[in-house]
């Protein structure tokens, strides 16, 4: 949770936020996050009041092609940050680098001030940065419940020396099962608990992967295209879940192509193109940024993406005012 003393807002913006809070149905935590982000410049690599993840000079080349070339990025703690950009922009590769699934040619990054570069994927997850994959990795020949239980942390039964003595781990297993069923219920997968994960639909697998990541109680959850392939009827509730995670204090970083989803739930948007970060800002202003329209939306840009109805007009007005001040 961010602390109050770290807020470096001007008196005006505090008043703005208070005014926005009076009408907007947002939680206190969300208000605080928005207030902090309101002070952030809308430029690539902008400093954040409470950066939980900071990356510097991260480069990854495949042969002659530079897939990722991120000069500086800070991710605000407790916020939902969307990472968008055209196909091949390097979003997944950047995720892989941050989570230890790939090694950069150069660069460093930190989590809560501690260096994460060079750490193994397992170590990164253990520290509390847990990711999902664009191409889902449901463990097909395990049941849905087993998928969930596998994610439970500090399970004494996962130690070979204790594994053959069930009394040493049955208590943990029982508690983990209860927790797993609770999370599964949230994702409407509880009725599938004893089905093999391989029998789920593509969208259900995405949900399972996210539910499984939540079993680890992450501090930061990184979702690579969580909505892709998910039944439209479920997307709305999935967005609600992601917001709820933020409201519980979790930091969410997600890659998504669905602009409605991005506009609807993200507090901050980072735009990547050709490996670089080309723009940053709140969703409404970023999507109006000409550089973004050019780099990302290109010919497919339609007016629908400018639809503001999902955002509170007052917050929007404030963001616009700030945009003009720059």
């Amino acid at each position: 949770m961010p602390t109050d003393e770290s807020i470096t807002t001007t008196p005006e913006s505090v008043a703005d936020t208070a005014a926005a809070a009076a009408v907007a149905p947002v939680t206190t935590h969300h208000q605080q996050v928005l207030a902090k982000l309101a002070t952030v410049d809308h430029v690539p690599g902008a400093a954040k009041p409470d950066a939980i993840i900071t990356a510097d000079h991260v480069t990854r080349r495949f042969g002659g092609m530079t897939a990722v070339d991120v000069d500086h990025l800070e991710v605000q703690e407790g916020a939902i940050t969307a990472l968008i950009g055209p196909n091949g922009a390097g979003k997944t590769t950047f995720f892989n680098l941050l989570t230890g699934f790939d090694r950069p040619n150069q660069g460093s990054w930190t989590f809560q001030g501690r260096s994460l570069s060079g750490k193994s994927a397992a170590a990164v997850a253990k520290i509390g940065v847990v990711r999902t994959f664009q191409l889902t990795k449901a463990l097909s020949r395990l049941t849905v419940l087993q998928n969930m239980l596998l994610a439970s942390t500090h399970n004494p039964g996962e130690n070979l020396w204790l594994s053959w003595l069930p009394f040493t781990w049955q208590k943990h297993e029982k508690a983990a099962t209860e927790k797993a069923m609770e999370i599964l219920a949230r994702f409407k997968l509880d009725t599938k608990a004893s089905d093999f994960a391989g029998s789920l639909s593509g969208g259900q697998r995405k949900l399972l992967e996210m539910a499984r990541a939540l079993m680890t109680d992450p501090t930061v959850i990184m979702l690579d295209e969580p909505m892709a392939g998910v039944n439209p009827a479920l997307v709305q509730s999935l967005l609600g879940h992601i917001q709820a995670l933020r409201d519980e204090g979790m930091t969410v970083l997600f890659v998504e192509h669905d602009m409605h989803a991005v506009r609807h739930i993200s507090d901050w948007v980072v735009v990547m193109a050709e490996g670089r970060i080309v723009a940053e800002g709140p969703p409404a202003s970023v999507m109006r940024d000409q550089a973004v329209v050019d780099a990302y939306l290109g010919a497919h840009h339609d007016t629908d993406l400018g639809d503001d109805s999902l955002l509170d007009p007052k917050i929007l007005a404030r963001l616009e005012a700030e945009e003009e001040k720059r």
Partner: protein
Amino acid sequence: MDEFNRILEQTLAEFIAPTTAAYAMAAIGLNLHFGYTGLLNMGQAGFMLLGAYGFGIATMAGLPFPVAILVALAAGTVFALILGMPTLQLRGDYLAIVTISAAEIIRWIGRSTWLQEWTGGASGLQGRDYKDSFHATSPLGDGRMALGPLEYINTGSDSWWTRIFAWGLVALVLLFVWLITRSPWGRVLKGIREDEDAVRALGKNVYAYKMQALVLGGAIGALGGVLYALPLAIAPDAMSRTMTFFVWTVMLLGGAATVFGPVLGSMVFFAAYMLMRTGMRAVADNTGIGDVITTSNVEQIGGMLVGVTLMLLVIFRPQGILGNKRELAFNAH
């Protein structure tokens, strides 16, 4: 009719033969590797040979029987560590290549002249050199015993005691493997088999789990080698690629990732193998087919048919006898 009974008796005898137990044991180890963890160990015979050497040489050096067994386990453990350390961080195929060549290296070293003093070179170790301490553990004493059509001496190489000991050890190891594979530890192994990156993303040290599975399965393979040596001799050329290939067939026949698969697979495999060879011999001896299939060809044809069986199995019933068909539906992803 006499001939028919003899064939049936020989087939029946295979169900409880010490060699059947030895292969069941080796397949239990391979099942931990492949069935549960997805590790491609193509050199289980190397683990078995090393276990047999470890046991035989330790006994010849004067160590007591239980200590010689521990030496065999240690040999399998060290071999697994050496093979696993460089390969388990790489893609699965590397382990397959390394295990297949390492098993061959063990055999070539065994049959070379440098260590002849210990390994007996190409002719190997004679049973009488290392079996006394095992026979001394027998509570059955001398004499013979018949159980139905099966009759063996109480104590000795091809004895009841060898059978009881071998199957007792298989039962013990099976119980242990059943306990560990149904635990959260076993669940991590299965997760690794399905997709090791997904397991990494959940904060598990995949390398450590793969190493534990490789060591455990390798040590069990070494124990299989001891069981194989108890009724026979230790001959490096008898414990080579064909043996690995039979262990794979046994494991897949019974059903990978099932608890009793390796045991059932071994019993069915050796009974069928015996029935096929004795049957073919009888047919070759007594009918005109003998002109085509001569008695001396039976072994070769038998081996060939095992290969065909393995292929048919993998194509038409990859889940084996005990495997779950529902589970298999997601095999291909």
